[in-house]
């Protein structure tokens, strides 16, 4: 691998999709300095270009009472839908514009890991708070993250935590906590641990009026519990501490990070660091990481956000109808931020590569290509027609086209929009 290929590989994985200029800069700085800058962006820590949080307004759920009329409920529902759409559009815009690309991509990872959907939470402001909590703890050690998530109103609502009481234990949250968020399936916990864990989590409720998660002692089961062989009067905090401190958790989470940032290959030993920043550094500097080029299938959100960045398109600047088409495209490709299909998160790998998704991708690529910024188009058309496939490869930060794809692109050289669409749907651009 050349130095340019190495920084391009790093940037394709650590960001949503680098622009040609970003690769130029990184090549000058070298791989090591580029990684430092990704993990600790200069300036305000956000790379200087983080757009502010959206002003969603009051949560319409707060206004509702038992006596609310049907009309009031419908109105609140409508307002909630609008707020949610605003939040999704805001996040897409932030993914495209964020200077702290790794931070934003890591947030998308954590969102898929603690996969929580607004479809059940039904509150844009709680979803935003959920994201900000994940962002705050994203690069840090695991214990504060696990602890914060067990007090997160969106996660509690999502997994029926507020239904879990001393009199009526509900296992949903405890089970998924161990299976999907911390230890990993089959990693040394039993059905009895699930039941005991559910008892530890009893007592947390969410106040829809204030949007706050609150501990109600009389709903809590204070008795002794035995979890993972340890006996104690576990509550949410001590249960979180127990799980987050287990080596199985560190290994499982590091394995998930490897799976999403490197690929499906066996992760190297000892990836897990004392905090996620260290784990990420180990992933990106592992010798095996360099062997993973072209093996990771881009998730639809990654594919779209990368394309928007490389073509100089900022979603918030687009007409509303075009913004809606972007979201419709993601819906057709089956990945909409804030709406994971289940608590297991989104699929990975070749599950995304279906006939259904290729059709949706063609339409979405057409929308994106149609919005490409003029200076970007100018750079492409500045090349003579015979050189345009190579100019496109530079623009989309593809290391090179196969003969197959070159043969497909060459006849389109005179039609820049179609050429860009073809590049975006090409097999080379589907993976990274």
């Amino acid at each position: 691998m050349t130095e340019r290929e190495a920084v391009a590989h790093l940037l394709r994985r650590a960001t949503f999709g680098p622009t040609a200029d970003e690769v130029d800069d990184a090549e000058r700085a070298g791989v090591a300095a580029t990684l430092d800058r990704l993990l600790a962006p200069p300036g305000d820590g956000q790379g200087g270009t983080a757009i502010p949080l959206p002003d969603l307004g009051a949560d319409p759920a707060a206004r509702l009472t038992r006596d609310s009329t049907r009309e009031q409920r419908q109105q609140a529902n409508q307002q909630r839908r609008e707020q949610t759409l605003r939040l999704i559009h805001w996040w897409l815009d932030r993914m495209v514009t964020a200077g702290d690309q790794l931070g934003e991509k890591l947030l998308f990872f954590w969102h898929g890991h603690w996969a929580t959907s607004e479809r059940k939470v039904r509150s844009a402001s709680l979803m935003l708070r959920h994201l900000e909590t994940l962002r705050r703890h994203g690069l840090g050690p695991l214990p504060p993250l696990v602890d914060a998530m067990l007090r997160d109103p969106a996660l509690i609502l999502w997994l029926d935590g507020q239904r879990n009481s001393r009199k009526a234990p509900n296992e949903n949250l405890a089970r998924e906590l161990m299976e999907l968020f911390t230890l990993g399936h089959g990693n040394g916990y039993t059905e009895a641990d699930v039941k005991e864990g559910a008892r530890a989590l009893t007592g947390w409720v969410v106040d829809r009026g204030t949007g706050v998660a609150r501990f109600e002692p009389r709903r809590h089961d204070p008795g002794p519990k035995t979890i993972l062989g340890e006996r104690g009067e576990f509550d949410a905090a001590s249960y979180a501490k127990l799980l987050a401190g287990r080596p199985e958790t560190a290994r499982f989470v590091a394995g998930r990070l490897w799976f999403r940032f490197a690929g499906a290959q066996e992760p190297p030993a000892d990836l897990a660091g004392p905090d996620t920043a260290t784990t990420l550094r180990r992933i990106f500097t592992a010798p095996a990481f360099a062997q993973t080029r072209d093996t990771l299938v881009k998730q639809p959100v990654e594919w779209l956000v990368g394309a928007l960045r490389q073509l100089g398109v900022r979603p918030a600047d687009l007409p509303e109808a075009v913004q809606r088409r972007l979201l419709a495209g993601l819906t057709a490709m089956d990945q909409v931020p804030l709406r994971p299909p289940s608590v297991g998160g989104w699929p990975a790998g070749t599950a995304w590569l279906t006939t259904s998704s290729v059709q949706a991708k063609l339409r979405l690529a057409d929308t994106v290509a149609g919005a490409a910024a003029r200076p970007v188009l100018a750079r492409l058309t500045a090349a003579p027609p015979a050189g345009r496939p190579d100019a496109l490869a530079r623009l989309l930060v593809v290391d090179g086209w196969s003969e197959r794809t070159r043969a497909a692109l060459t006849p389109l050289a005179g039609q820049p929009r179609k050429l860009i669409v073809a590049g975006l749907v090409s097999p080379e651009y589907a993976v990274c």
Partner: protein
Amino acid sequence: MDTLTRRRFLVASGVVGASALAAGATGYRLSDLLATSGDRDPRARTLVLVTLYGGNDGLNTVIPYADPAYHDARPELAYTGEEVKRLDDEVGLNPALAGLHRLHGEGRLAVVRGVGYPKPDRSHFRSMDIWQTAEPERPGNTGWLGRWLDRAGGDPRLAVSFEPAMPPLLAGERSAGAAVPAAERKASRVLPQATLAEFAAAAPEDTPARARAAACFADLRSVEEMIREVRDSEAAAEQEPDGEGAPATATGGSRTPLDAQLDLVAQCVEAEVSTRVFSVSLGGFDTHADEKQLQEVLLGQVDRAVSGFADRMARTEAGRKVVVAVYSEFGRRVRANASDGTDHGTASNVLLLGSGVRGGLYGEAPSLTDLDDGDLRFTTDFRDIYATLLARVLDTDPGAVLGGWRGRLDGVL
């Protein structure tokens, strides 16, 4: 409402192996197989697999209403003998299942009770892996129908899913079924056909993932071809004076996704496409709280979609060769939790229906008092049913697909 659908469950844990799906790209060329379309053996049967994601509560689907233990365990959730749609003096169907109840009366619905597998796993994701791979000891990275597809030649059109992402059950070692969107969409004209055809070729330096991305373009062409034929024949049927061919929504209004998926299956079957297996699904059955009403809504959707489909199938020769199988990854605990829901359980029912099905009750109903840590003990291994479907519907030696499994469910097909 609990919209935790769990549809695309697991792949997060990596069950679908990249190599399994990618191998199809180099193993064969779909364009080579296009010519075989229409070569369907008129005697061949078709399997329609309906997956209910989330763990449907089996005890409130096929209800042992006469068993006092049932009412004791879940007083708030239980249905009385007056409420259920009775099948006999002991069991009845959920009140939302009027259509299936009628099919049972007509001898076209078989209910297999107590279906499960040894050492039940209460994780949705793992249990669904187990059902889809048919490998309870150690779920691998191929689905049972994917392995059948490998043996049937690997043409993705033989095994079609009308879900946006392909379920792992259709992933084989060397081939994979086709995922076709259920919503009607025009074939894409964004790029010239020649470009799409170029992309379909394999490149020597392709990684498996990239090869699979290229193979999608080959699949796209053959699947578009098939769907076009289906729609053409549908258009022809609509012009017939009796109008029987056109699927109408009797009640109007919005249609559930399962309806839409089964509509497409019906169109394909009537057009006699080469597909032998269709996979459709409905999510949302994870009813940890406020279960009764939610489950009734969902079962109502299943009932309308499936019984409507069965009736439509009964009208054609090809349709009468269709067997529908309905399953979920597990049932739920016998005892209700105190949120008026149930937590993850074990054994449940599998429903089989169609003109060729011998209706009735099969398998032994599990005891509600002799429990395994609060859960039902399974009486029929789900692989017995798979083996029967493979042998009787797909004309395949089940042993080759199911690791030498010998059990069968006798008499039903």
